[in-house]
């Protein structure tokens, strides 16, 4: 167990090193003259020269990478020139809004996705099953930016039931979180259905039924519990989808989170903010997936990594 933890920690650390390398290559190596890019347009040559020195851009590339990593580890991601403040602070201020949206979407995904999946598996081959499948296929096929706009058209413009942009209370959360949840919900519904179907055909389920357990107990306590591991894996990987989906969803609903921030930052060519968002979201993803891997061993005592 301990050696497994160590190995996973080591792997995560390696992944983060890779993340920093990739960001370094995209924002420092490809552009040719990063000092120009990391400063606002029209910056005086003296400022460019100073940043060049600070970033060590006259040094060999590996020295530059060393300087980059050192400043990132110290939390120095450069100055956002759009907000004239440290980039890390600008980004961190936007994190709660994104987390609120992503968490709401995640809760929706689990509740709706698992319910649809269970219903479809238990009532296999009936109308419920087909309706669930159709919903899942639709959820996977509708582009979230279009779904968002159509929800705005229906509930905002036509019916006037819900606000369509901004962030001032729970009712502002409804449309964006539905938009963001649609795609992962479809995946969760399909996975729940298929893993439940497999589990329901196993011996211990028959034993449970044979000893007179009520059907809900069989499904919820015995079958669903064993479907949690593949579900958790999928949900962990969907963190990326949620963070990425937030980029588009937040833009559609003018939601003041990290996703909208990065889109705006790119239009302003505010690259210190872009690099901060990239590194931060990759770190969140790696950390959550590490936690999930550890959770496996807690959830399923059979999993004991050597």
């Amino acid at each position, binding site marked *: 167990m301990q050696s497994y933890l160590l190995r996973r920690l080591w792997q995560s650390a390696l992944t983060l090193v*890779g993340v920093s390398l990739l960001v370094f290559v995209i924002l420092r190596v490809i552009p040719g003259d990063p000092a120009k890019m990391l400063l606002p347009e029209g910056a005086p040559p003296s400022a460019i020269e100073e940043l060049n020195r600070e970033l060590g851009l006259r040094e060999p590339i590996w020295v530059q990478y060393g300087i980059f990593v050192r400043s990132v580890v110290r939390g120095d991601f450069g100055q956002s020139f759009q907000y004239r403040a440290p980039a890390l602070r600008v980004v961190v201020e936007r994190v709660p809004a994104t987390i609120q949206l992503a968490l709401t979407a995640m809760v929706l995904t689990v509740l709706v996705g698992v319910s649809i999946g269970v219903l479809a598996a238990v009532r296999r081959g009936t109308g419920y099953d087909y309706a669930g499948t159709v919903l899942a296929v639709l959820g996977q096929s509708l*582009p979230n930016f279009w779904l968002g*706009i159509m929800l705005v058209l229906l509930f905002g413009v036509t019916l006037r039931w819900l606000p369509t942009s901004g962030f001032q209370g729970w009712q502002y959360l409804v449309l964006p979180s539905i938009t963001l949840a649609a795609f992962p919900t479809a995946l969760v519904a399909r996975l729940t259905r298929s893993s439940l179907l497999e589990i329901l055909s196993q011996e211990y389920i028959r034993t449970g039924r044979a000893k007179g357990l009520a059907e809900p107990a069989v499904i919820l306590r015995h079958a669903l519990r064993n479907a949690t591991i593949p579900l958790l894996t999928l949900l962990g990987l969907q963190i990326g989808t949620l963070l990425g989906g937030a980029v588009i969803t937040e833009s559609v609903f003018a939601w003041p989170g990290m996703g909208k921030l990065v889109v705006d930052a790119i239009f302003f060519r505010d690259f210190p903010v872009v690099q901060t968002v990239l590194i931060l979201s990759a770190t969140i993803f790696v950390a959550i997936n590490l936690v999930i891997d550890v959770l496996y061993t807690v959830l399923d005592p059979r999993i004991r990594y050597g």
Partner: protein
Amino acid sequence: MSRLLRHPMAVVGGLLLAVVVVASVAAPLLATSDPIKPSFGKRLQPPRVLGGTSAYVLGTDNLGRDIYARLLYGGRVSLALAASAVVLAASVGVTVGLAAGVLGGRLDDLVMRVADVQLAFPVIMLAIAIVAVVGTSPGALVSVLALSGWVLYARTVRAAVLTIRQLDYVEAARTLGASDLRVVVLHILPNTLAPILVIGSSQFATMVLLESGLSFLGMGVQPPQPSWGAMLAEGRDYLSNAWWLATVPGVAISLVVLGANLLGDGLRDLLDPRLRE
């Protein structure tokens, strides 16, 4: 083929996709007016079913351009970019996966770590960051899309290689003196084709979504070139008085994605029963 016909949803998906592909390829023949030239006298005309004229079947946009023509030409761009990206991602992914599986060792470790790094980034965030630096030329867009897709092939092919190379017939080929390259190309690669095909068709859906998402954000195909994502973005400002502007391109994207997903599911059931749900 006859087995494919027993999967009605796959057939529906294939047909949907075929109709859109043919319509896009035949855009110059089907379009009745210019997709790019504005005519301000004819702004925001409704589609024909909503009382518009038959000259503009799907109405006109905020610059008086024919939505039907823009839809056809936009489809060309979206489909061509997505298809090229799938081909590029598959070639890179399959090559890397084969190399990692066959050669193993350090190369294998390296490839799998690179794949982890790739997966740690939300696809669209990485894509917009790269596009911001390298620009929005078709080549750059295809590369960015492909960058998001190669991992899936590499992992699948690698896993397949690890299984296949222990099978007796590969052993036999080796005993007969076949070189590594010959074993890989003639004996291993053909047996990974089924999963590659399945991934490819589902990934086509993902690529269309990603490309239109980028164009929607203004970081994909650039105006005046029509693209579905950009048409949607333009239509957002006219939801209250001309809702069809944003609705029509979204339906087109959804149909293509739906078609590719259905086809992908059908192919999976058909070619790779182990993956069946």
